[in-house]
Protein backbone atom coordinates (compact mmCIF):
# COMPACT_ATOMS: atom_id res chain seq x y z
CA UNK A 1 0.00 0.00 0.00
CA UNK A 2 1.18 3.52 -0.81
CA UNK A 3 0.79 6.23 1.83
CA UNK A 4 0.59 9.98 1.25
CA UNK A 5 3.94 11.68 1.39
CA UNK A 6 5.06 15.11 2.44
CA UNK A 7 7.08 17.46 0.32
CA UNK A 8 6.27 21.12 0.67
CA UNK A 9 7.69 22.18 -2.67
CA UNK A 10 5.91 19.54 -4.77
CA UNK A 11 2.65 20.05 -2.88
CA UNK A 12 2.87 23.81 -3.32
CA UNK A 13 3.52 23.43 -7.03
CA UNK A 14 0.68 21.01 -7.74
CA UNK A 15 -1.71 22.89 -5.47
CA UNK A 16 -1.32 25.88 -7.74
CA UNK A 17 -1.35 23.70 -10.83
CA UNK A 18 -4.70 22.12 -9.92
CA UNK A 19 -6.34 25.43 -9.07
CA UNK A 20 -5.02 26.87 -12.30
CA UNK A 21 -6.26 24.14 -14.63
CA UNK A 22 -9.67 24.12 -12.94
CA UNK A 23 -9.90 27.84 -13.56
CA UNK A 24 -8.59 27.60 -17.12
CA UNK A 25 -10.62 24.65 -18.36
CA UNK A 26 -13.99 25.45 -16.86
CA UNK A 27 -16.21 28.42 -17.37
CA UNK A 28 -17.29 28.04 -13.75
CA UNK A 29 -17.49 25.50 -10.96
CA UNK A 30 -20.81 25.91 -9.23
CA UNK A 31 -21.61 24.39 -5.87
CA UNK A 32 -24.05 25.01 -3.06
CA UNK A 33 -22.74 26.19 0.28
CA UNK A 34 -22.88 23.65 3.10
CA UNK A 35 -22.32 24.20 6.80
CA UNK A 36 -19.59 22.03 8.27
CA UNK A 37 -19.28 21.49 12.04
CA UNK A 38 -15.89 22.33 13.46
CA UNK A 39 -14.20 19.51 15.29
CA UNK A 40 -15.26 16.77 12.91
CA UNK A 41 -13.47 15.28 9.99
CA UNK A 42 -15.17 14.99 6.61
CA UNK A 43 -15.88 11.88 4.57
CA UNK A 44 -16.63 13.06 1.05
CA UNK A 45 -18.43 10.68 -1.32
CA UNK A 46 -18.53 11.59 -5.00
CA UNK A 47 -19.52 10.12 -8.34
CA UNK A 48 -16.65 9.13 -10.62
CA UNK A 49 -16.99 9.97 -14.29
CA UNK A 50 -13.72 11.61 -15.31
CA UNK A 51 -10.22 12.62 -14.36
CA UNK A 52 -11.57 15.94 -13.28
CA UNK A 53 -13.60 14.93 -10.28
CA UNK A 54 -10.62 14.48 -7.97
CA UNK A 55 -9.35 17.91 -8.98
CA UNK A 56 -12.80 19.44 -8.63
CA UNK A 57 -13.17 18.03 -5.14
CA UNK A 58 -9.71 19.34 -4.29
CA UNK A 59 -10.86 22.75 -5.47
CA UNK A 60 -14.05 22.54 -3.40
CA UNK A 61 -12.10 21.47 -0.33
CA UNK A 62 -9.89 24.49 -0.83
CA UNK A 63 -12.91 26.79 -1.10
CA UNK A 64 -15.33 25.32 1.43
CA UNK A 65 -14.04 22.72 3.88
CA UNK A 66 -10.44 23.89 4.17
CA UNK A 67 -9.27 20.54 5.59
CA UNK A 68 -6.25 18.40 4.88
CA UNK A 69 -7.10 16.62 1.63
CA UNK A 70 -6.87 12.83 1.32
CA UNK A 71 -8.19 10.65 -1.47
CA UNK A 72 -8.45 6.92 -2.00
CA UNK A 73 -7.06 5.98 -5.43
CA UNK A 74 -6.53 2.68 -7.25
CA UNK A 75 -2.95 1.51 -6.79
CA UNK A 76 -2.01 1.50 -10.49
CA UNK A 77 -3.05 5.13 -10.82
CA UNK A 78 -1.00 6.25 -7.81
CA UNK A 79 2.02 4.51 -9.32
CA UNK A 80 1.40 5.98 -12.75
CA UNK A 81 0.80 9.57 -11.69
CA UNK A 82 3.61 10.15 -9.31
CA UNK A 83 2.50 13.50 -7.89
CA UNK A 84 -0.80 12.14 -6.53
CA UNK A 85 0.80 10.86 -3.35
CA UNK A 86 2.06 14.33 -2.51
CA UNK A 87 -1.49 15.64 -2.79
CA UNK A 88 -2.88 13.24 -0.19
CA UNK A 89 -3.57 10.16 -2.30
CA UNK A 90 -3.30 6.72 -0.71
CA UNK A 91 -3.71 3.51 -2.61
CA UNK A 92 -6.31 0.80 -2.57
CA UNK A 93 -6.08 -2.48 -4.43
CA UNK A 94 -8.60 -5.14 -5.21
CA UNK A 95 -6.81 -7.96 -3.33
CA UNK A 96 -8.45 -8.46 0.03
CA UNK A 97 -5.58 -8.13 2.52
CA UNK A 98 -4.22 -4.96 0.97
CA UNK A 99 -7.70 -3.54 0.81
CA UNK A 100 -8.24 -4.03 4.54
CA UNK A 101 -5.08 -2.04 5.24
CA UNK A 102 -6.35 0.81 3.06
CA UNK A 103 -9.74 0.80 4.76
CA UNK A 104 -8.10 0.85 8.19
CA UNK A 105 -5.91 3.72 7.13
CA UNK A 106 -8.91 5.71 5.85
CA UNK A 107 -10.72 5.17 9.15
CA UNK A 108 -7.61 6.27 11.01
CA UNK A 109 -7.45 9.47 9.01
CA UNK A 110 -11.07 10.22 9.88
CA UNK A 111 -10.21 10.18 13.58
CA UNK A 112 -8.35 13.46 13.15
CA UNK A 113 -10.84 16.38 12.80
CA UNK A 114 -8.42 18.25 10.52
CA UNK A 115 -8.69 15.64 7.77
CA UNK A 116 -10.91 15.15 4.77
CA UNK A 117 -11.09 11.79 3.02
CA UNK A 118 -12.50 11.65 -0.49
CA UNK A 119 -13.77 8.30 -1.69
CA UNK A 120 -15.30 7.37 -5.03
CA UNK A 121 -17.50 4.49 -3.92
CA UNK A 122 -18.17 3.44 -7.53
CA UNK A 123 -14.60 2.18 -7.71
CA UNK A 124 -14.10 2.92 -11.40
CA UNK A 125 -15.05 5.35 -14.13
CA UNK A 126 -18.63 5.44 -15.28
CA UNK A 127 -20.48 7.73 -17.67
CA UNK A 128 -21.82 11.03 -16.38
CA UNK A 129 -25.22 9.82 -17.61
CA UNK A 130 -25.72 6.82 -15.30
CA UNK A 131 -29.00 6.62 -13.44
CA UNK A 132 -27.91 4.20 -10.76
CA UNK A 133 -24.79 4.62 -8.67
CA UNK A 134 -23.41 1.24 -7.60
CA UNK A 135 -21.21 1.17 -4.51
CA UNK A 136 -18.33 -1.21 -4.02
CA UNK A 137 -17.96 -3.05 -0.73
CA UNK A 138 -15.80 -1.68 2.05
CA UNK A 139 -17.24 1.76 2.68
CA UNK A 140 -19.39 0.56 5.59
CA UNK A 141 -16.28 -0.84 7.28
CA UNK A 142 -14.64 2.59 7.32
CA UNK A 143 -17.82 4.17 8.61
CA UNK A 144 -18.15 1.66 11.45
CA UNK A 145 -14.55 2.04 12.52
CA UNK A 146 -14.63 5.82 12.69
CA UNK A 147 -18.26 6.13 13.80
CA UNK A 148 -19.16 9.46 15.37
CA UNK A 149 -15.90 11.16 14.49
CA UNK A 150 -16.76 12.36 11.01
CA UNK A 151 -19.35 14.09 8.92
CA UNK A 152 -20.55 12.48 5.69
CA UNK A 153 -20.91 14.81 2.73
CA UNK A 154 -22.26 13.67 -0.58
CA UNK A 155 -21.33 15.27 -3.85
CA UNK A 156 -22.99 14.71 -7.21
CA UNK A 157 -21.28 16.37 -10.16
CA UNK A 158 -22.71 17.06 -13.60
CA UNK A 159 -21.03 18.76 -16.53
CA UNK A 160 -22.91 21.15 -18.76
CA UNK A 161 -21.95 23.39 -21.67
CA UNK A 162 -24.92 25.63 -22.42
CA UNK A 163 -24.14 28.99 -23.97
CA UNK A 164 -20.44 28.97 -23.10
CA UNK A 165 -17.62 27.38 -25.06
CA UNK A 166 -16.07 25.98 -21.91
CA UNK A 167 -18.01 23.54 -19.75
CA UNK A 168 -19.50 24.36 -16.39
CA UNK A 169 -19.29 21.86 -13.54
CA UNK A 170 -22.30 21.75 -11.24
CA UNK A 171 -21.52 20.11 -7.91
CA UNK A 172 -24.44 19.37 -5.64
CA UNK A 173 -23.33 18.97 -2.02
CA UNK A 174 -25.34 17.65 0.89
CA UNK A 175 -24.54 16.84 4.49
CA UNK A 176 -25.99 13.44 5.25
CA UNK A 177 -27.16 12.56 8.73
CA UNK A 178 -28.74 9.16 8.17
CA UNK A 179 -26.00 6.59 7.78
CA UNK A 180 -27.93 3.34 8.02
CA UNK A 181 -27.95 2.84 4.27
CA UNK A 182 -25.36 5.04 2.57
CA UNK A 183 -25.97 3.76 -0.92
CA UNK A 184 -29.71 4.47 -0.78
CA UNK A 185 -29.08 7.90 0.73
CA UNK A 186 -26.53 8.71 -1.97
CA UNK A 187 -28.87 7.47 -4.68
CA UNK A 188 -31.61 9.74 -3.40
CA UNK A 189 -29.29 12.75 -3.34
CA UNK A 190 -28.04 11.86 -6.83
CA UNK A 191 -31.58 11.62 -8.19
CA UNK A 192 -32.52 14.98 -6.68
CA UNK A 193 -29.40 16.59 -8.09
CA UNK A 194 -30.04 15.14 -11.52
CA UNK A 195 -33.60 16.38 -11.48
CA UNK A 196 -32.42 19.90 -10.70
CA UNK A 197 -29.83 19.59 -13.42
CA UNK A 198 -32.27 18.52 -16.12
CA UNK A 199 -34.52 21.48 -15.36
CA UNK A 200 -31.90 23.94 -16.61
CA UNK A 201 -33.31 25.82 -19.59
CA UNK A 202 -31.85 28.95 -21.14
Amino acid at each position, binding site marked *: MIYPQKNKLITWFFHNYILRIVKADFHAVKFNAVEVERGKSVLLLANHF*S*WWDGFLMYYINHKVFKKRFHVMVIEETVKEVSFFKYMGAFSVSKSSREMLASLDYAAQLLNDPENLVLIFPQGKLYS*NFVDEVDFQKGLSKIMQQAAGKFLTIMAAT*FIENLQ*YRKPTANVYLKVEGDLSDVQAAYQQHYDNAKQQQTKIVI
Partner: protein
Amino acid sequence: MIPARRVKLFSNWFAMYMRYRMRKAFNRLVVANKVVIKPGHSILLLCNHFGWWDGFLANYLAYWHLFRKSYVMMQEDHLKKRMLLNLFGGFSINRSSREMVKSLQYAAGLLNNPENLVVVFPQGELISNHTNEIKVEKGIERLIKNIKGPCQIVYNCALIDYFESLKPSVFFHLFDCGIAGEVPFDELVEKINTCHQQALKAQIDVEH
Protein backbone atom coordinates in the same frame (compact mmCIF):
# COMPACT_ATOMS: atom_id res chain seq x y z
CA MET B 1 -35.84 36.33 -42.56
CA ILE B 2 -32.23 36.05 -43.70
CA PRO B 3 -31.68 33.32 -46.30
CA ALA B 4 -28.36 31.49 -46.46
CA ARG B 5 -25.72 32.81 -48.85
CA ARG B 6 -23.72 29.62 -48.77
CA VAL B 7 -20.37 29.80 -50.59
CA LYS B 8 -19.07 26.31 -51.13
CA LEU B 9 -15.36 27.13 -50.93
CA PHE B 10 -15.67 29.22 -47.76
CA SER B 11 -17.92 26.62 -46.16
CA ASN B 12 -15.36 23.91 -46.84
CA TRP B 13 -12.60 26.02 -45.34
CA PHE B 14 -14.70 26.84 -42.34
CA ALA B 15 -15.68 23.20 -41.80
CA MET B 16 -12.02 22.17 -41.89
CA TYR B 17 -11.05 24.96 -39.51
CA MET B 18 -13.81 23.98 -37.09
CA ARG B 19 -12.83 20.35 -37.32
CA TYR B 20 -9.34 21.41 -36.25
CA ARG B 21 -10.79 23.46 -33.39
CA MET B 22 -12.96 20.57 -32.25
CA ARG B 23 -10.15 18.07 -32.38
CA LYS B 24 -8.21 20.44 -30.16
CA ALA B 25 -11.03 21.06 -27.72
CA PHE B 26 -12.29 17.49 -27.49
CA ASN B 27 -10.58 14.24 -26.76
CA ARG B 28 -12.62 12.17 -29.22
CA LEU B 29 -15.56 12.70 -31.57
CA VAL B 30 -17.26 9.35 -31.80
CA VAL B 31 -20.29 8.25 -33.76
CA ALA B 32 -21.54 5.64 -31.32
CA ASN B 33 -24.62 4.69 -33.29
CA LYS B 34 -24.40 4.86 -37.07
CA VAL B 35 -27.27 5.37 -39.46
CA VAL B 36 -27.80 4.09 -42.99
CA ILE B 37 -28.07 7.02 -45.38
CA LYS B 38 -30.59 6.56 -48.16
CA PRO B 39 -29.09 7.56 -51.51
CA GLY B 40 -30.99 10.25 -53.41
CA HIS B 41 -32.56 11.65 -50.26
CA SER B 42 -31.91 14.98 -48.62
CA ILE B 43 -31.49 14.88 -44.85
CA LEU B 44 -33.31 16.74 -42.11
CA LEU B 45 -30.98 16.50 -39.11
CA LEU B 46 -32.77 17.08 -35.81
CA CYS B 47 -30.33 17.64 -32.92
CA ASN B 48 -30.52 18.12 -29.19
CA HIS B 49 -29.54 21.67 -28.23
CA PHE B 50 -27.30 21.69 -25.18
CA GLY B 51 -24.44 24.02 -25.78
CA TRP B 52 -22.25 26.39 -27.66
CA TRP B 53 -20.69 23.67 -29.78
CA ASP B 54 -23.64 21.81 -31.22
CA GLY B 55 -24.11 23.82 -34.42
CA PHE B 56 -20.47 23.10 -35.29
CA LEU B 57 -20.83 19.48 -34.23
CA ALA B 58 -23.82 19.08 -36.55
CA ASN B 59 -21.86 20.70 -39.37
CA TYR B 60 -19.05 18.22 -38.71
CA LEU B 61 -21.50 15.33 -39.01
CA ALA B 62 -22.91 16.74 -42.23
CA TYR B 63 -19.47 16.95 -43.81
CA TRP B 64 -17.77 13.79 -42.62
CA HIS B 65 -20.51 11.33 -41.81
CA LEU B 66 -23.63 12.21 -43.77
CA PHE B 67 -21.93 13.69 -46.87
CA ARG B 68 -24.36 16.49 -47.65
CA LYS B 69 -24.23 20.28 -48.02
CA SER B 70 -25.18 21.65 -44.66
CA TYR B 71 -27.54 24.48 -43.82
CA VAL B 72 -28.27 25.44 -40.24
CA MET B 73 -31.39 27.06 -38.86
CA MET B 74 -30.46 29.76 -36.33
CA GLN B 75 -32.28 32.29 -34.20
CA GLU B 76 -32.40 35.63 -36.00
CA ASP B 77 -30.77 37.69 -33.24
CA HIS B 78 -27.97 35.13 -32.92
CA LEU B 79 -27.32 35.09 -36.66
CA LYS B 80 -27.31 38.89 -36.87
CA LYS B 81 -24.45 38.99 -34.37
CA ARG B 82 -22.47 36.45 -36.42
CA MET B 83 -23.26 37.23 -40.03
CA LEU B 84 -20.16 35.38 -41.18
CA LEU B 85 -22.00 32.13 -40.49
CA ASN B 86 -24.48 33.24 -43.14
CA LEU B 87 -21.84 32.42 -45.75
CA PHE B 88 -21.49 28.91 -44.36
CA GLY B 89 -25.16 28.00 -44.60
CA GLY B 90 -26.74 29.71 -41.61
CA PHE B 91 -30.27 31.03 -42.19
CA SER B 92 -32.53 32.67 -39.69
CA ILE B 93 -35.81 31.99 -37.99
CA ASN B 94 -37.69 34.43 -35.78
CA ARG B 95 -40.15 32.59 -33.63
CA SER B 96 -42.02 35.69 -32.54
CA SER B 97 -42.90 37.04 -35.97
CA ARG B 98 -44.95 36.02 -38.98
CA GLU B 99 -41.81 35.47 -40.94
CA MET B 100 -41.41 32.18 -39.10
CA VAL B 101 -43.56 30.47 -41.72
CA LYS B 102 -41.29 31.84 -44.41
CA SER B 103 -38.23 30.38 -42.72
CA LEU B 104 -39.89 26.99 -42.42
CA GLN B 105 -40.88 27.06 -46.08
CA TYR B 106 -37.38 28.11 -47.02
CA ALA B 107 -35.92 25.17 -45.07
CA ALA B 108 -38.39 22.81 -46.74
CA GLY B 109 -37.36 24.25 -50.11
CA LEU B 110 -33.72 23.48 -49.39
CA LEU B 111 -34.64 19.90 -48.62
CA ASN B 112 -36.12 19.38 -52.09
CA ASN B 113 -32.56 19.09 -53.34
CA PRO B 114 -31.17 15.64 -52.45
CA GLU B 115 -27.66 17.11 -52.02
CA ASN B 116 -28.70 19.25 -49.06
CA LEU B 117 -28.92 18.75 -45.34
CA VAL B 118 -30.72 21.09 -42.94
CA VAL B 119 -29.82 21.15 -39.25
CA VAL B 120 -32.72 22.05 -36.97
CA PHE B 121 -32.80 22.14 -33.18
CA PRO B 122 -36.38 21.09 -32.47
CA GLN B 123 -36.21 22.15 -28.81
CA GLY B 124 -35.86 25.79 -29.86
CA GLU B 125 -33.83 26.71 -26.76
CA LEU B 126 -30.81 25.56 -24.79
CA ILE B 127 -31.66 22.66 -22.51
CA SER B 128 -29.44 20.59 -20.23
CA ASN B 129 -27.50 17.74 -21.81
CA HIS B 130 -28.85 15.45 -19.09
CA THR B 131 -32.50 15.93 -19.94
CA ASN B 132 -34.44 12.77 -20.70
CA GLU B 133 -37.19 14.45 -22.66
CA ILE B 134 -36.97 16.17 -26.02
CA LYS B 135 -39.75 18.56 -26.71
CA VAL B 136 -40.41 19.17 -30.40
CA GLU B 137 -41.79 22.56 -31.44
CA LYS B 138 -44.89 22.71 -33.59
CA GLY B 139 -43.03 24.39 -36.43
CA ILE B 140 -41.31 21.11 -37.30
CA GLU B 141 -44.67 19.67 -38.39
CA ARG B 142 -45.14 22.54 -40.82
CA LEU B 143 -41.57 22.22 -42.09
CA ILE B 144 -42.01 18.53 -42.84
CA LYS B 145 -45.36 19.07 -44.53
CA ASN B 146 -43.80 21.52 -46.95
CA ILE B 147 -41.06 19.18 -48.15
CA LYS B 148 -41.77 17.93 -51.67
CA GLY B 149 -38.68 15.94 -52.55
CA PRO B 150 -37.60 12.69 -50.86
CA CYS B 151 -36.09 13.50 -47.46
CA GLN B 152 -34.76 11.32 -44.70
CA ILE B 153 -35.23 12.45 -41.10
CA VAL B 154 -32.31 11.70 -38.78
CA TYR B 155 -32.23 12.38 -35.05
CA ASN B 156 -28.82 13.15 -33.56
CA CYS B 157 -28.35 12.90 -29.82
CA ALA B 158 -24.93 14.31 -28.88
CA LEU B 159 -23.72 13.56 -25.36
CA ILE B 160 -20.63 14.96 -23.62
CA ASP B 161 -18.65 12.57 -21.44
CA TYR B 162 -15.11 12.57 -20.06
CA PHE B 163 -13.89 9.17 -18.88
CA GLU B 164 -10.06 8.82 -18.81
CA SER B 165 -9.22 12.28 -20.04
CA LEU B 166 -9.15 15.88 -19.00
CA LYS B 167 -10.74 16.81 -22.29
CA PRO B 168 -14.37 16.01 -22.98
CA SER B 169 -15.43 13.58 -25.69
CA VAL B 170 -18.53 13.86 -27.82
CA PHE B 171 -20.62 10.78 -28.49
CA PHE B 172 -23.08 11.07 -31.36
CA HIS B 173 -26.02 8.72 -31.34
CA LEU B 174 -27.72 8.85 -34.74
CA PHE B 175 -31.15 7.38 -35.38
CA ASP B 176 -33.16 7.00 -38.56
CA CYS B 177 -36.63 8.46 -38.02
CA GLY B 178 -38.15 7.56 -41.39
CA ILE B 179 -38.95 9.55 -44.51
CA ALA B 180 -40.68 12.93 -44.43
CA GLY B 181 -44.38 12.66 -45.15
CA GLU B 182 -44.55 8.97 -44.29
CA VAL B 183 -44.44 9.42 -40.53
CA PRO B 184 -47.23 11.32 -38.74
CA PHE B 185 -45.99 14.15 -36.49
CA ASP B 186 -47.08 12.64 -33.16
CA GLU B 187 -45.40 9.39 -34.04
CA LEU B 188 -42.21 11.27 -34.95
CA VAL B 189 -42.14 13.07 -31.60
CA GLU B 190 -42.60 9.78 -29.80
CA LYS B 191 -39.89 8.19 -31.90
CA ILE B 192 -37.43 10.98 -31.15
CA ASN B 193 -38.07 10.58 -27.45
CA THR B 194 -37.62 6.81 -27.48
CA CYS B 195 -34.41 7.28 -29.49
CA HIS B 196 -33.17 9.79 -26.94
CA GLN B 197 -33.85 7.39 -24.07
CA GLN B 198 -32.09 4.66 -26.00
CA ALA B 199 -29.08 6.92 -26.51
CA LEU B 200 -28.88 7.73 -22.80
CA LYS B 201 -28.96 4.01 -22.01
CA ALA B 202 -26.36 3.16 -24.64
CA GLN B 203 -24.10 5.94 -23.33
CA ILE B 204 -23.65 4.08 -20.02
CA ASP B 205 -22.05 1.11 -21.77
CA VAL B 206 -20.23 3.09 -24.43
CA GLU B 207 -16.66 2.02 -25.19
CA HIS B 208 -14.00 4.16 -23.57
